[in-house]
């Protein structure tokens, strides 16, 4: 597989084996939030709950700050990270707006207007 081609898509991290290895413990922590009991424990003391998982300092910081782009860079997968923002009661659109650096209102307005155009968003090296 040619990872350089996958890395050539602007603003996108493809969840390859490389990312999956990096993010294994982070994503497994996210997976644990599928039960109400674990969500309650996490909310009661996020730091103590995270201590139970072998996260790197960068992963831990990304989770505590709800910095989704940083979490993705550290191997997080969006469907796993969604368990955190579901636990927070945050919608996918609200989480996505923080990833693109827009207010939620502006992001939703962009989507209603037809979404982000693919023009210029396909390839970094080809500039298209």
């Amino acid at each position, binding site marked *: *597989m040619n990872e350089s*081609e*996958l890395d050539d*898509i*602007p*603003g*996108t*991290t*493809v*969840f*390859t*084996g490389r990312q*999956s290895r990096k993010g*294994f413990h982070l*994503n*497994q922590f*996210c*997976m644990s*939030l*599928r*039960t*109400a009991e674990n*969500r309650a424990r996490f909310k009661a003391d996020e730091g103590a709950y995270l201590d139970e998982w072998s996260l790197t300092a960068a992963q831990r910081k990304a989770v505590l700050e709800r910095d*989704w*782009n940083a979490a*993705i860079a550290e191997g997080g*997968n*969006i*469907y*796993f990270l*969604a*368990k*955190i*923002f*579901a*636990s927070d*009661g945050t*919608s*996918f*659109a609200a989480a*996505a707006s923080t*990833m*693109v*650096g827009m207010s939620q209102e502006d*992001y939703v307005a*962009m*989507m*209603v207007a*037809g*979404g*982000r*155009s*693919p023009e210029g*968003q*396909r*390839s970094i090296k080809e500039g298209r």
Partner: protein
Amino acid sequence: MARITAGVTTSHVPAIGAALDHGNAGNDYWRPMFAGYDWTKKWIAQERPDVVVLVYNDHASAFSLEMIPTFAIGCADTFNVADEGFGPRPVPVVEGHPDLAWHLAESLILDEFDITIMNKLDVDHGLTVPLSLMFGQPEAWPVKVIPLAVNVVQYPPPTGNRCYALGEAIRRAVQSYGEDLNVQVWGTGGMSHQLQGPRAGLINKEFDAAFLDKLTADPEALRRMPHLEYLREAGSEGIEMVMWLIMRGALGEVVKELYRFYHVPASNTAVGHIVLQTAP
């Protein structure tokens, strides 16, 4: 003899389920999206399929990173609704058709598709949102469901060509089942969308329209589409559309398009929906 009579594809956006579950389906944002399924609801009430082979992907609900089957078939009597981080959706338990599901599993494996057999499987919005779109909010789902889970979370998903060939094998397997059953195959997910990173919110209407056209008229072209093209053109999560090719492969070469609907947006996603009828 069991027979595949029709195929349906639809997006399976979780926010659609939330809108229905929280009583927001009639508001200005959601009404036009739900209205796009009115035709299909009437159609399927007349068609009354016995079983739906429902192709979907799990979103870190049943499958963690511990085990990642590329193709998995649900052979259980029933499938519970998964807790995806906000409690299970308030929808009926999904009833399976274990006899046909086991027949499919055995036939597919002997037909050289090494599918994973699931005797316990909690199903998430990927499977329940399409049921809600077709059937609304019933006390019990009016159809038996055989979940067919495809990995599209961990790169790489199966190729479009492999998905199409799996569909063809499902067709052979259904046709070799003795009981007279009206079977539909649904492909779910898509259309263009990206949920992650600075490119989130990507929508490509031209790509989606061409994909819908080719699904009926030129599936051979879609079989050859590489993953990179889905990722570039339809967004990182748009690659879910490979699952539609399982549906298409199961219908045989010639199909008739009965209905099509396209709408932007449902939350972050372009909603695409098509109903195809197999040749008699």
